């Protein structure tokens, strides 16, 4: 009976309940597991964290006041995080940009896909009432992340050549989007 209950909740890849909740200062040790991992930050604009104090400062200064930032939890324990930005200019307020990271020990189990689907439902469901569009800008070489977004119902809009700098190198990036009006595919 217990196992069947697990199956009907948000589960993927065979084990564990996936949930989203705000990330707290008390999550810093779990944060350090993924944020210090070079495989995890390969396509992030930032370098791996090396200091718990830096991590605490980041959580306090950037994550706590963020318009939408959530820990991705597996059975209640943070294993990654995601966020949707807010634009200051009124003309750009309709869109937010999604980013996410997941501990490398949890890759390949559909966890990021499930977390992205849950986040999209939350932001369009009232957490971010001003948003019409959630977009994601993904490095052309980050095929795993492109698959996450496709499975989560995002539409691939095009490739933007030499769009941004990643750790000092120019990168081509794919633009994905999901609208509040998109049907589940």
């Amino acid at each position, binding site marked *: 009976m217990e196992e069947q209950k697990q199956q009907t909740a948000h589960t993927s890849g065979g084990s564990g309940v996936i949930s989203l909740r705000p990330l707290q200062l008390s999550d810093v040790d779990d944060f350090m597991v993924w944020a210090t991992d070079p495989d995890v930050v390969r396509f992030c604009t930032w370098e791996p964290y090396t200091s718990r104090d830096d991590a605490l400062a980041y959580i306090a200064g950037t994550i706590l006041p963020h318009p939408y930032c959530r820990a991705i939890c597996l059975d209640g324990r943070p294993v990654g995080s995601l966020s949707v930005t807010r634009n200051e200019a009124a003309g750009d307020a309709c869109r937010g940009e999604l980013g996410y990271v997941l501990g490398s020990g949890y890759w390949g189990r559909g966890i990021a896909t499930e977390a992205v689907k849950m986040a999209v439902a939350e932001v369009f469901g009232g957490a971010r009432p001003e948003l019409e*569009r959630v977009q994601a800008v993904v490095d052309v070489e980050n095929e795993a992340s492109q698959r996450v977004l496709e499975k989560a119902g995002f539409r691939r809009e095009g490739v933007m050549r030499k*769009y941004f700098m990643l750790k000092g190198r120019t990168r081509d990036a794919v633009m994905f989007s999901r609208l509040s009006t998109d049907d589940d595919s």
Partner: protein
Amino acid sequence: MEIEPMAVSLRPFRISDADDFLSFAGDDRVTRFLRWKTLASREEALATIRDVCIPHPWRRAVCVGDRCIGFVSMWPGSGDDRCRADIGYGVAREWWGKGVATRAVRMALSQVFGDFPDVLRIQAFVGVDSKASQRVLEKAGFTRDGLLRKYAYLKGNLQDLYLYSFLSTDVVPAD
């Protein structure tokens, strides 16, 4: 009928451009697809030239002879976005259909990469209904990257926008 190539030039804005600037920046037909508020007076034109056009990272008056009949702007990014810049442009209504905007954009492309050595990509956001502007970019050699759905508001209306790009390694097509 296309304007003679030598007749169009780009130069920095001057305070003395105020009347010419008002003439097109005060025209709703020109500002329709821009985020600009249509100017209503010579005082507003003077203030805009002084406070926006002259201190701008890169804004040029598009001139026929020495008379200002339009503008081209480049907005470079910073930090990890320093490799790209956004282009915007507008031309007085009476100069439409003569290839002026295409000429001005081509000239801007020939200058901007030298002025901003970090910039490798110029991009333009164009409304799906803004057919004339799409033609300007295509004739200047831009590539259409894709359609960005519900990307931004323009004067209160949610817009689908085409994204176009031109790289420092791209070639401007022959006239």
